[in-house]
């Protein structure tokens, strides 16, 4: 049984879709990567899973959570705001983007973690809270002493660890991490990813990792969902998607990754820019930038099963081989 089931999730802004019919499932202990360019709807999808969308965005579609130890599945899409307050952080929690903004500059770390616990468990005593905070700080690789500090007294990596501790404060079964490693140097990135990885095993967490850094995702996740213009264009296990991409967008994205020992110089960039969220081109949203597009691409492509547990939303998948791209065939009108 899957831990999280998302069915036809759609988020609209004034009737225009920002996220358009996203489906996926996530098993217990599994980690899923959400990849894609800025503005493709990764963060919006994550916020919709917790019903934390900013005002003006409306969400539709089914979100069902089956946390271990809870009898009835939680129908997130039918919960009211008050109903969601019990679910957030207890079952699904979020590591916010940008550690600097996510911590209150005038509060001790202890108080900020304690706040999450107290808001959830009103009867908990001060001693218990303190013990749990110390525990959490140690779990994320910090010392309990750091709880007495202010955010500005911590390094970027330490702050990111505090953010993870905040997410774990109420022992959730699913953690969504939104760009947890941006703004960190490479060494820190590796450490934070390692931490997430070990926490996942230790605490039997499921993880949704949002990033545009494919290298980061490949290292950490079991499965990957590539998003483009609010839709998942390809989803599958990290190994299959990376070794055998089945959507032209994924293919081009992977081609743009520099390979150590590979050819010198950069790969040809994907022409054009990302489409306007909310007003994507009709049919396959990638067609204006796709070197292989034909008139058929003006129709919506259905997700096709191209392998075991591997879906791609392209009219021409499965691709047995990728034709060489002639540069002049690339239409840059997006």
């Amino acid at each position, binding site marked *: 049984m899957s831990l999280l089931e998302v069915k036809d999730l759609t988020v609209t802004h004034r009737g225009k879709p920002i996220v358009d019919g996203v489906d996926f499932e996530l098993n217990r202990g599994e980690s899923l990567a959400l990849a894609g360019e800025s503005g493709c709807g990764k963060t919006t999808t994550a916020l919709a899973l*917790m019903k*934390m969308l900013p005002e003006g965005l409306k969400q539709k579609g089914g979100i069902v959570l089956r946390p271990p130890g809870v009898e009835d599945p939680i129908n997130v899409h039918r919960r009211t705001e008050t109903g969601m307050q*019990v679910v*957030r952080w207890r079952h699904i929690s979020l590591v*916010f983007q940008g550690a600097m903004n996510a911590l*209150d500059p*005038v*509060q001790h770390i202890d108080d900020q973690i304690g*706040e999450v616990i107290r808001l959830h468990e009103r009867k908990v005593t001060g001693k218990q809270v303190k013990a749990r905070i110390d525990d959490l700080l140690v779990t994320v690789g910090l010392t309990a002493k750091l709880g007495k500090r202010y955010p500005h007294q911590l390094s970027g990596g330490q702050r990111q660890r505090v953010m993870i501790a905040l997410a774990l404060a109420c022992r959730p079964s699913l953690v969504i991490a939104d760009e947890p490693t941006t703004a960190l140097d490479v060494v820190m990135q590796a450490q934070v990813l390692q931490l997430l990885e070990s926490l996942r095993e230790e605490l039997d967490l499921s993880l949704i990792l949002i990033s545009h850094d494919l290298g980061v995702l490949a290292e950490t996740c079991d499965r990957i969902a590539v998003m483009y213009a609010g839709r998942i264009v390809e989803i599958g296990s990290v190994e299959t998607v990376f070794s055998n991409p089945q959507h032209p967008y994924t293919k081009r994205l992977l081609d743009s990754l520099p390979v150590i020992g590979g050819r010198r110089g950069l790969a040809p960039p994907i022409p054009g820019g990302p489409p306007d969220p909310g007003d994507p081109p009709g049919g396959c949203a990638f067609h204006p930038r796709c070197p292989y597009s034909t008139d058929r691409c003006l129709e919506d492509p259905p997700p096709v099963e191209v392998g075991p547990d591997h879906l791609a939303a392209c009219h021409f998948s499965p691709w047995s081989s990728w034709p060489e791209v002639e540069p002049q065939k690339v239409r840059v009108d997006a």
Partner: protein
Amino acid sequence: MRESGALKLLTDTWRGRFGVAVILVAVFVSIFGTLIAPYEPEASSLDVLQPPSLDHWLGTTESGADVFSQLLVGTRVSVLVGFAAAIISAVLGSMVGIASGYFGGWTDRILDALENWFLVIPTLPLMIVLARLLDPSLIVLIAVIGFTSWAGTGRIVRAQVLTLRERSFVERARALGAGDGYIIRTHILPNTLPLIFASTVLIIAVAILSEAALAFLGLGDPTRISWGTMLQNAFDSGAPSAGAWWYVIPPGLCITLLVLAVSLLGFLYEEYINPRLRRES
């Protein structure tokens, strides 16, 4: 590091030293002025409009009272009105600013319109009208000045709260079901206090000046001596044209010194919370 930075600005710059010294003296005199004063401040004598002498260090008034004693006793009103009015203005300004920034929507529109109205209307005429309508007393003076000077603070606070309420830590608390009162108390207010404080310090200076202006126009508390009423009495009795400079210059100079000291400290504090303003030194 930051903690010592604040003290350093106070002790290592001439502006800090001057400001602290003047304010300490003013506060001391406003508490003990009645005890130090060599004469009854309003006791009249036959020595009318006498220039400074050993008996009367700063000369005498038109009714023969000691100018120096009046100056000492008058400090209390200036200091009291300055601080009390600034506190009223800070409380009003931060309440309106936080409510309008945090709640947004119609609350914001109405409060913002009110704020604009108070910002645009010339403050002194408004104060004069209000002070005229009510019986002049110290409380009325404080209330009128506080009530007309909060709009600037409100504006600054509102802008800060608008950015604060979108921060993730506020969003997180809200997502977990924290009430508005809780969020304002634990997150919004502590993050706005430095700004409130900075603008309040500068309002103290404005309040001291306003008290002097109102008193000079005869709208002060008639039962109390202040630097403003001293100036009013001096002008009413024709002291400047009689060449009685000792009656006019001391209260004027005291007002200037105190306002200068408060302003300097206000600017220093602004530099402290906004290091971009700090000069190369």
